[in-house]
């Protein structure tokens, strides 16, 4: 890519790299290698040694011109972290946001962990980032106080300047940078953090720092990376998972227009790693894609061709009649409680495999030269990319440079590094930079999927309509892998139930068990792994129990949650559950949605659900209309979340909640993959539909409840409660209970 004056676009030129490398060496006040002026100004390169800046740590630089550059170390995948984490530094730094420029950091040990998954970017960095900003502010105040020969207590920092209160003298940060750079960096715990009451930036609405580049079509995403002399690659893998190449018409392919090379990559047995396939390298993306249409590969498809979704359904049915192979939890006397029940409710819930379908197809640019590899990757987990490439291709980690490029959507897909190792393996064979681009068909048919699953549930109610026993046999999916020389079954990401999953721990007589079915289908984390569908299963079944007990679904849930404020974790992965926070969001959402106070005609109704995941407590109420013909319209969704003591960026936070709600609805309505002969049947958005405008809810009301708890992330927690809230509303409207996903599997028509 050409150097771009906008620092917020990924600049991948050599100067940029030297900036990052020099920053690695940085102690306090070290001179920077490279610098750019703000957007719209001409490029100005500050030569090493020519001028000093103030650089108290790896994340902050203040130039003598007063430009404040903050490094965003986390990958930006649409969750808004490139805007929100720098805001945390800027708040404590007392800098005007308009004076701030953001650069995306490369993968670099100087930054600490850089994985964007599990909504962890905010909780893992928030407190440190406050301290980073406060440290720099403290040093700038010291620099001003020394300049004026006054006490630091007489000086305050505000609006990118330090002011001496008595004399009204003021020095801008740029004017203080050189002096500040000579001061020792104070210990992090020696600096004073602001009182959150005095925050000016945090909690306000700040637009995404890349928005201008997005709306003007600037090169910004992984797929936009362009290097001099770059070639373009496609990679064909076996449609049946894990299949190996026997032969391919490579010579015919190499003779096609624009094709530079075509070759087989043997790959490995790691379903989430470098799979076997055929690479075609050409002068343009289209030349490679065109040539691929002529490619004929003779595959050894292996035993996976015996696997099909219908086969798994039958197997799950049969397994459900036996005890689970893995016990997860047993409290009290479930058998006795069921025997003594006034009423027993039984139901089977199931859901299919689904794809991430992140909008930017997987891609990665790689350049292998002199035994070293440089990668430009739209990734959520850059270290995983570096590690997989190192272990698969035998390149030392120190020889692998990875530039984190903005991703056109993540949803968990880009925690995997298969497309990175593919690009690297191709680049090893090609003496030029090469960009690998997947087609949508590749993306849909070679995803690391959200696993399907089957829950066989029973609940017992006593004469007062109280839940006395809960039994779930979860039939799930696992891959056979080698671990420590042993062949073991490893459930897919999010495809294993915790013994502490709600309502485990709450019901006196509780039996949770699971049985994994072996499959050869690659699985991986999908937005709110596990939670994205467990919430639907459990809150739908809880709703069934409430109705069977003849009780209000809200009141039934509040009774189930009980009066204890903290429910301790008990299982291996158990975490304490703050019941008070959940009761609060649940009662708030009911109040905001006028739960129980609105009258709906038949065909309309409200549904309620809550879920705790990723440190966030969220409750949602959906209001739906179902026509007599069975067409669903979600009229309104009310969301109340508690993600701690501070919302970082109100605009970004609301955007994440709105997006989670609509993503939740689209997944509920449409997402479904079929498996036949060990491969995915669907190919593109024509047979794997995503939600379109007309199905988006008209109104989404987002409310944040602040608690005194640590600040956390919002990429995931608002997703899980949507599906059960909508399905419970559908039941209220029509009396139809949805027990199979997607929604299109259930006839919702009524008379």
């Amino acid at each position, binding site marked *: 890519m050409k150097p771009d004056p906008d620092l917020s676009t990924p600049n991948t030129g050599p100067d940029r790299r030297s900036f990052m490398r020099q920053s690695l060496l940085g102690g306090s006040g070290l001179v920077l290698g490279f610098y750019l002026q703000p957007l719209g100004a001409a490029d100005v390169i500050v030569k090493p040694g020519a001028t000093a800046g103030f650089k108290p740590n790896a994340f902050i630089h203040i130039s003598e011109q007063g430009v404040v550059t903050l490094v965003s170390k986390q990958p930006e995948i649409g969750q808004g972290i490139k805007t929100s984490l720098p805001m945390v530094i800027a708040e404590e730094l007392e800098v005007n946001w308009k004076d701030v420029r953001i650069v995306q950091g490369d993968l670099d040990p100087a930054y600490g962990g850089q994985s964007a998954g599990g909504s962890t970017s905010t909780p893992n960095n928030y407190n440190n980032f406050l301290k980073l900003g406060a440290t720099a502010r403290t040093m700038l105040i010291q620099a001003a106080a020394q300049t004026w020969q006054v006490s630091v207590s007489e000086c305050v920092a505000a609006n990118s300047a330090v002011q001496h209160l008595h004399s009204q003298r003021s020095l801008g940060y740029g004017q203080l940078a050189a002096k500040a750079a000579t001061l020792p960096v104070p210990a992090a715990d020696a600096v004073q953090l602001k009182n959150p009451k005095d925050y000016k930036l945090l909690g306000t609405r700040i637009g995404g720092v890349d928005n201008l580049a997005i709306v*003007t079509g600037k090169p910004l995403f992984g797929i936009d990376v362009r290097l001099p002399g770059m070639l373009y690659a496609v990679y064909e893998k076996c449609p049946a998972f894990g299949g190996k190449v026997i032969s391919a018409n490579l010579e015919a392919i190499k003779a096609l227009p624009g094709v530079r090379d075509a070759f087989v990559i043997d790959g490995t047995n790691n379903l989430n790693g470098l799979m076997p396939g055929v690479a075609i390298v050409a002068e343009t993306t289209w030349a490679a894609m065109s040539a691929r249409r002529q490619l004929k590969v003779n595959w050894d498809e292996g035993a996976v061709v015996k696997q099909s979704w219908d086969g798994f359904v039958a197997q799950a049915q049969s397994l459900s009649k036996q005890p689970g192979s893995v016990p997860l939890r047993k409290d009290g006397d479930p058998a006795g409680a069921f025997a003594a029940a006034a009423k027993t409710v039984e139901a089977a819930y199931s859901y299919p495999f689904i794809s991430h379908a*992140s*909008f930017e197809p997987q891609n990665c640019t790689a350049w292998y030269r002199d035994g070293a590899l440089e990668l430009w990757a739209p990734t959520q987990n850059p270290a995983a990319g570096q590690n997989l490439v190192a272990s698969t291709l035998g390149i030392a980690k120190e020889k692998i440079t990875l530039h984190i490029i903005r991703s*056109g*959507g993540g949803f968990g897909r880009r925690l995997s590094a298969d497309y990175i190792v593919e690009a690297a393996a191709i680049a090893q064979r090609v003496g030029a930079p090469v960009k690998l681009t997947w087609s949508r068909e590749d993306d849909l048919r070679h995803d690391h999927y959200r696993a399907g699953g089957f829950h066989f549930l029973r609940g017992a109610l006593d004469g007062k309509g109280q839940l006395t026993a809960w039994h779930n046999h979860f039939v799930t999916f696992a891959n056979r892998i080698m671990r420590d020389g042993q062949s073991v079954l490893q459930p897919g990401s999010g495809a294993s139930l915790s013994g502490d999953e709600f309502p485990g721990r709450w019901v006196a007589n509780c039996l949770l068990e699971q049985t994994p079915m072996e499959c050869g289908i690659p699985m991986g984390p999908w937005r709110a792994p596990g939670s994205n569908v467990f919430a639907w299963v459990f809150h739908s079944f809880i709703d069934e129990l409430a109705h069977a007990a003849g009780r209000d679904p809200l009141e039934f849930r509040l009774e189930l949650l009980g009066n204890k404020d903290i429910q301790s974790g008990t299982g291996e992965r158990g975490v304490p559950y703050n019941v008070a926070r959940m009761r609060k969001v649940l009662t708030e959402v009911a109040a905001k949605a006028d739960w129980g106070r609105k009258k709906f005609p038949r065909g309309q109704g409200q549904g309620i659900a809550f879920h705790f995941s990723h440190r966030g407590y969220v409750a949602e109420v959906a209001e739906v209309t179902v026509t007599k013909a069975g067409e669903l319209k979600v009229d309104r969704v009310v969301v109340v979340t508690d993600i701690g003591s501070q919302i970082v960026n109100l605009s970004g936070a609301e955007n994440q909640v*709105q*997006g989670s709600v609509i993503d939740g609805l689209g997944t509920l309505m449409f997402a479904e993959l079929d498996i036949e002969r060990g491969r995915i049947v669907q190919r593109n958005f024509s047979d794997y539909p995503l939600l379109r405008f*007309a199905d988006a809810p008209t109104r989404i009301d987002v409310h944040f409840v602040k608690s005194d708890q640590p600040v956390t992330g919002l990429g995931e927690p608002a997703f899980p409660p949507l599906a059960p809230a909508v399905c419970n509303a559908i039941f209220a409207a029509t009396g139809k209970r949805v027990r199979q996903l997607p929604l299109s599997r259930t006839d919702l028509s009524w008379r």
Partner: protein
Amino acid sequence: MSLYSLNINGATRQVEAAPETPLLWVLRDQLELPGTKFACGVGTCGACTVLLNGVPARACMTPISTVGRKQVLTIEGLDPNGAHPLQKAWQELDVPQCGYCQSGQIMTAAALLKENPNPSDAEIDDAMAGNLCRCATYVRIRAGIHRAAEITAKQKEGT
């Protein structure tokens, strides 16, 4: 391979390409205009929307040989400084999440507003039905189109 003379964003650009090459890849790989995005390649998602003589077209389904002298407008040509009412509204309301689909959304919306300066929600849903947003920013896109309509109306009052 054939030589084509194209009218792209008001300028004449020469390219050599095979006749069936989609306009999308000519824009992205040969003309260094990567704002037009590849997402499905079969015309189902709208990420590659450009305007051909003012009408939204799927660049992934438009062979270069069929473009002729039609005026091609891409996101880069809408307003390079981001001053088009839609670009302003998108920034003001912070519409994007990942941002990947937004150039296609904006191009379709630009054609809509030319035809219908003040569309209703239903008219927006109808006109935008071919554009997918995987991050599901639909509520903000609707609001962004309404806001752009307001900005345009105010600009007209001012002139």
